[in-house]
């Protein structure tokens, strides 16, 4: 069936619509051969049902050292080093399960819902700061980055006095405009900061996640790694979902009223934004044994790239998939992944997105772009899709 010549992963987003997956990606069949950054010939999955079954199938591994990189990162073509203890995103069961069991209790639906009030207060502080500044500003630092950074500080137990330093470091670590050396330096400083924080919490525990974890059986190194993973996986993602989400809403103004229709409407709207934008667009798994898939045989050791953004626009799963429709039922989207590694922080992310987006459009009903949509600087090649900045304005009081 698929005798198409193996091709690299299409990554170039089409000019025009900043939300559409790379042109070329969706012309690929649901399963095809793909050339990886190091020349490995593996596979690419674009169909929803197939993507789901690969992600859920434990014959496919998430181990970093087995995985080939779909595309080079700043010239680096792999291989990745094995995940260190605590970096469970790159581990399989049973190690992976051990960490999930230690952490999942801290991220339950129930626990995250009780956090909603605090997220609301944090959001209100950010919106107050916007109002105090007045119309005409970049929404990314004051809102999209600020809300998730303050929430994660609260969750981890970063002391109030350190929050500015923490946020600055986290921003620098995720700054795509900075060189590799600068971001690495920021990452290291952040790692050092977390190590200090873990030490502090072990000595004088407070009421937060890190303190809780220090009483368990994780080693010091594991605690620092887990802290770093939570930040690495939780901060840039949520910030970009907020930034790109607002951008999408401002360019679909007919949809904005839905954000003011109450909790149920907002819940659905957030799921649709997650589906439509699929900011974490690409995942990789590796076959541990020969696996038959859609009439093909994936050989042991071959990498499979899951193109979540194509899967989330599979017309067999979602009717009229290229339309942003906040009222549709988007359940089953793959924006938080699928299978044992499905996002640990998704219930937190949901609460943040609901509270922050609803809060923004309630407080600033006349919010609009301050520049033409095609002048908003969009990330073109990042692992996480988003905007670099989002100039907005509104009618002042």
């Amino acid at each position: 069936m698929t005798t198409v010549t193996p091709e690299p992963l299409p990554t170039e987003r089409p000019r025009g619509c900043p939300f559409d997956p790379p042109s070329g990606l969706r012309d690929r069949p649901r399963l095809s051969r793909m050339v990886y950054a190091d020349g490995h010939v593996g596979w690419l999955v674009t169909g929803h049902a197939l993507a789901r079954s690969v992600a859920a199938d434990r014959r496919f591994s998430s181990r970093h050292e087995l995985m080939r990189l779909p595309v080079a990162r700043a010239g680096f073509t792999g291989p990745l080093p094995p995940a260190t203890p605590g970096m469970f995103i790159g581990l399989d069961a049973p190690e992976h399960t051990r960490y999930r069991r230690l952490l999942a209790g801290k991220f339950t639906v129930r626990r995250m819902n009780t956090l909603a009030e605090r997220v609301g207060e944090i959001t209100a502080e950010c919106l107050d700061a916007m109002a105090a500044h007045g119309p005409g500003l970049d929404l990314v630092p004051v809102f999209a980055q600020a809300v998730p950074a303050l929430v994660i500080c609260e969750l981890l137990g970063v002391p109030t006095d350190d929050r500015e330093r923490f946020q600055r470091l986290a921003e620098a670590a995720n700054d795509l405009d900075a060189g590799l050396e600068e971001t690495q330096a920021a990452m290291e400083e952040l790692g050092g900061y977390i190590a200090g924080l873990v030490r502090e919490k072990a000595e004088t525990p407070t009421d937060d996640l890190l303190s809780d974890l220090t009483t368990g059986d994780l080693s010091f190194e594991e605690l620092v790694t887990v802290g770093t993973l939570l930040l690495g996986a939780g901060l840039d993602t949520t910030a970009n979902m907020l930034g790109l989400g607002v951008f999408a809403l401002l360019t679909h103004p007919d949809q904005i009223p839905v954000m003011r229709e109450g909790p149920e409407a907002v819940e659905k709207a957030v799921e649709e934004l997650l589906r439509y934008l699929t900011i974490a667009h690409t995942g990789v798994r590796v076959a541990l044994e020969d696996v038959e898939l859609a009439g093909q045989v994936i050989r042991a050791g071959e990498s499979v790239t899951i193109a979540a953004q194509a899967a989330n626009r599979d017309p067999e799963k979602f009717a009229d998939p290229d339309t942003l429709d906040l009222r549709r039922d988007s359940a089953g989207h793959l924006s938080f992944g699928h299978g044992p590694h499905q996002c640990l922080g998704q219930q937190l992310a949901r609460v943040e997105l609901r509270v922050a987006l609803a809060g923004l459009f309630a407080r600033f009903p006349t919010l609009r772009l301050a520049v033409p949509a095609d002048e908003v600087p969009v990330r073109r090649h990042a692992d996480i899709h988003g905007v670099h900045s989002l100039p907005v304005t509104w009618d002042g009081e």
Partner: protein
Amino acid sequence: MGIVIDRSLCVGAGMCALSAPGVFDQDPDEGTVTPVGGAAPDPGDPAVRRAVDTCPSGAITLAP
């Protein structure tokens, strides 16, 4: 036909508690699925079906 829960597979993602909050909850320590109340989950309930469909780990399934 009934609902089968295998907690050894559960990764605490919470899709069940999100989809059918009256039927599934999560253990406060491990985050794993716990049925709410004594009654067995009803496979005819659309919310339960949604939990089965969206559970990422295969911990909640429909018995044949």
